[in-house]
């Protein structure tokens, strides 16, 4: 009950504060007010800005921004509209103020700039701050607060306090509190100062840290410059709190990067885990099957240029089929003559990989092709101001786990999977039981290749698509499979993720190249210790 009353009070109070600003103005009235800006006199413009500020909506905010940037013009000839303008190659591209439709490109001389002086600029900045602080989108409000972090002055402070009293969104409140604390950290009132220091200690904004650091500066003898013990202790506490949080966040970020690298490795290696691990075929053309998947994505996007959003959904099955068919062709054409001679499959498939690379070069040119990223995959997910995670990596982690789960299901729960395992464990016996081993071989290889193709779709979102892209992954993929233990899918998962994370953990202090070298050396040494990988196969199947 009490909560409801509080809520009602807040709403009522909010309405009281904002009501005067919310003068409803339809587009025609708005245009009339706007036209006042054409006047030469700065005083008149000032009053127009005040009127617009009272309208206080999206339209006004946009006008203010353009005006401040000097991009607001009006046409010299009829209909003398006020327009937004953007510089393009041959003149200025102009847009309607209301609605934002393009009005074409005109020469500079057809327009007259709406000039502003310093007084107006100050007015505009305050108006923008005020309007965006009261914007309906909480993200815009928070960004507005952040924008004034750098100088929370006498004008901004009351705006912040005013907004804080009505703000309900938690993250905006936090930002505002930091903003207020930033202005109060040099306050003469000790209690206010202590409180500000305390508030800043909870924030991860970079301004908070840089405002605190001057308080804990030492002189040459190692003594703190700040005399006041109490404030010094509070500042030290706040700084160490921030540092601890930053460190924690940077570890989280490293872990995230590591997992995303790991899932890339997993995607690249998991097809190989089938062809190499289950069938014992060293498929050096695996990287090129990934490449085929990536090029398939490229072609799919070429064929549906207006539906890039859905292109990946189409590309995944297409790439699976294309790469899978190529894989089956490779198996039927070359590999089936070489079973039981793993080192020779290595040579033959390496030949295939050279041919496929050259084929890509001939068809698509040696240059890299760019594959577009759909909008839903770009952007970042902000956890706090020190930690932002990109969506594409997130999707790839999820995607790789899905592929892994699907593959595991196929191998464990379908009759194809049963046949695959039977043939890989004892070919002769499986044949004696009536399994057509040739067909199973072809399908298994097709499955492994198809998954390589799917990996190609995912990788096309991270790296360049070119004839050499397969080469970049082949060695890593082999390392992952061997490290995890040949013939063991779970081993591949663990190996991929741990190698990914280790690589990213080493990177900050060793550099990317040295980290990679260290990982390679680690694998070489690890294989000495456990020649059959992390999770070796046991029993009879392990003998071959």
């Amino acid at each position: 009950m009490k909560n409801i009353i509080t809520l009602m009070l807040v709403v009522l109070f909010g309405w009281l504060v904002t009501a005067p600003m919310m003068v409803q103005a339809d587009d025609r009235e708005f245009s009339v007010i706007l036209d006042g800006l054409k006047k030469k006199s700065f005083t008149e413009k000032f009053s127009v800005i005040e009127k617009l500020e009272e309208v206080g909506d999206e339209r006004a905010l946009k006008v203010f921004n353009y005006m401040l940037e000097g991009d607001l013009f009006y046409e010299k000839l009829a209909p003398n509209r006020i327009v937004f303008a953007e510089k393009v190659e041959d003149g200025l591209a102009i847009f309607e103020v209301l609605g934002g439709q393009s009005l074409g490109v005109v020469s500079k001389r057809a327009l007259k700039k709406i000039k502003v002086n310093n007084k107006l600029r100050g007015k505009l900045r305050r108006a923008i701050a005020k309007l965006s602080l009261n914007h309906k989108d909480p993200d815009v409000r928070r960004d507005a607060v952040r924008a004034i972090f750098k100088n929370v002055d006498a004008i901004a402070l009351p705006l912040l306090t005013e907004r804080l009293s009505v703000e309900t969104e938690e993250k905006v409140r936090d930002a505002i509190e930091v903003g207020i604390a930033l202005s109060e950290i040099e306050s003469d009132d000790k209690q206010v100062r202590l409180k500000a220091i305390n508030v800043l200690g909870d924030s991860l904004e970079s301004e908070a840290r840089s405002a605190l650091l001057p308080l804990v500066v030492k002189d040459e003898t190692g003594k703190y410059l700040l005399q006041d013990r109490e404030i010094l202790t509070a500042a030290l506490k706040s700084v160490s709190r921030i540092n601890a949080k930053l460190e924690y966040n940077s570890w989280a970020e490293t872990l995230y990067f590591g997992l995303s690298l790991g899932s890339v490795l997993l995607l690249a290696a998991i097809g190989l885990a089938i062809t190499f691990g289950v069938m014992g075929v060293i498929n050096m053309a695996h990287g090129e099957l990934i490449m085929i998947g990536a090029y398939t994505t490229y072609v799919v996007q070429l064929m549906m240029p207006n539906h890039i959003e859905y292109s990946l959904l189409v590309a995944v099955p297409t790439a699976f089929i294309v790469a899978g068919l190529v894989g089956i062709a490779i198996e039927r054409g070359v590999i089936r003559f070489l079973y039981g001679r793993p080192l020779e499959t290595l040579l033959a498939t390496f030949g295939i990989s050279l041919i496929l690379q050259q084929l890509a070069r001939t068809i698509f040119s040696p240059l890299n092709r760019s594959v577009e990223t759909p909008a839903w995959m770009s952007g970042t997910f902000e956890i706090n101001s020190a930690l932002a995670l990109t969506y594409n990596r997130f999707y790839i982690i999820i995607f790789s786990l899905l592929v892994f789960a699907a593959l595991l299901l196929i191998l464990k729960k379908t009759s194809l999977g049963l046949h695959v395992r039977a043939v890989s464990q004892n070919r002769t016996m499986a044949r004696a039981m009536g399994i057509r081993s040739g067909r199973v071989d072809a399908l298994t290889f097709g499955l492994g290749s198809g998954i390589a193709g799917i990996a190609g779709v995912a990788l096309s979102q991270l790296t360049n698509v070119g004839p050499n892209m397969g080469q970049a992954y082949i060695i890593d993929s082999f390392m992952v499979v061997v490290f995890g233990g040949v013939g063991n899918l779970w081993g591949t998962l663990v190996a991929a993720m741990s190698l990914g994370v280790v690589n990213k953990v080493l990177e900050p202090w060793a550099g990317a190249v040295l980290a990679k070298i260290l990982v390679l050396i680690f694998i070489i040494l690890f294989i000495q210790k456990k020649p059959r990988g992390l999770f070796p196969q046991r029993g009879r199947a392990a003998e071959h």
Partner: protein
Amino acid sequence: MENRSFIMNLLANDIAARWFLSALLTLGIVVPFCNLMVPQDSWFHVSTYTVTLLGKYLSYALLAIALDLVWGYCGILSLGHAAFFALGGYAMGMYLMRQIGDRGVYGNPELPDFMVFLNWSELPWYWTGFDMFWFAMLMALLVPGLLAYLFGWLAFRSRVTGVYLSIITQALTFALLLAFFRNEMGFGGNNGLTDFKEILGFNLQSDGTRAGLFISTVLFLGLGYLVSRYIVSSKMGRVVVAIRDAEDRTRFVGYKVESFKLWIWVFSAMLAGIAGALYTPQVGIINPGEFSPLNSIELVVWVAVGGRGTLIGAVIGAVVVNFAKTFFTAAAPEIWLFFLGALFIFVTIFMPYGIMGVIKNLTQRKSQRVHKAPADEAA
């Protein structure tokens, strides 16, 4: 004593060896002669470019022999043998770098140009001694040898075999590739070592030096062949072949498989180092690209094409494939990879014993047909 009688024996009993050695001898005499003595406009003149090219092929041939020793005879498929070759090449390259002296772009008498460029004030410790030829050559042997010893000691003792061994040799050369790309390593980074001026006081650009290098390559190839031949026909060689065919059985019979493997592995790595040291002055550059896994795999193909398990086959394979490469990359670059790829597939499926296998087949067909299907040899 033993050695001479071995050679006599070889020449008397092995037709292929006789042919090969005489061909090598002829090449070593005729090519430099036709280059230096025959006037340029004569039809018989061999250009310096050709001499250098042939020298390059022959140093590759020596490398192929090195790989054939471990792969063809011992069944260890190394996908990183080019690493030992490149290390030998770098040792020679470091000597040649020091010989430049103050004739570099920056004119620093002590430091090679790339170190001056990186603002280094003194030579790193591992560059000391490389101004002496004998030391550099010793290193061209020792560095690949030691690396191979360390690597082999670890790998063979833990019984890492087959595919696993192949993959970790690939990891080794890949790690070295990445390491040598780093500027901080002090080996010239991306650009490698180049701009050599002279070797042992002889100008590297002159025809005479080129011919001299060619002759030494021929000599070392002949010597490398003889020693390898001696090893494979010795008792040790027989044990090595036994290890290839049935490792466990050999172990149960009582041989110490690990040490046999280790010694042939280390010897092979040193041979590859010599090949690298011969390669660098003739080509005039050594860079990290030599470490690339692709090079090692191409090397395996030379041996496969020529016929593994036959030393002469390795030589023939190296020369034939590289000749084809030179020809195709000049005539039709886009065809080269198609051709090379098709060659890989064709040879592994249809010519498991390579060119030598085909020759053997043809000569034996007269008396009787003894062509067994290629058995599970490489596994």
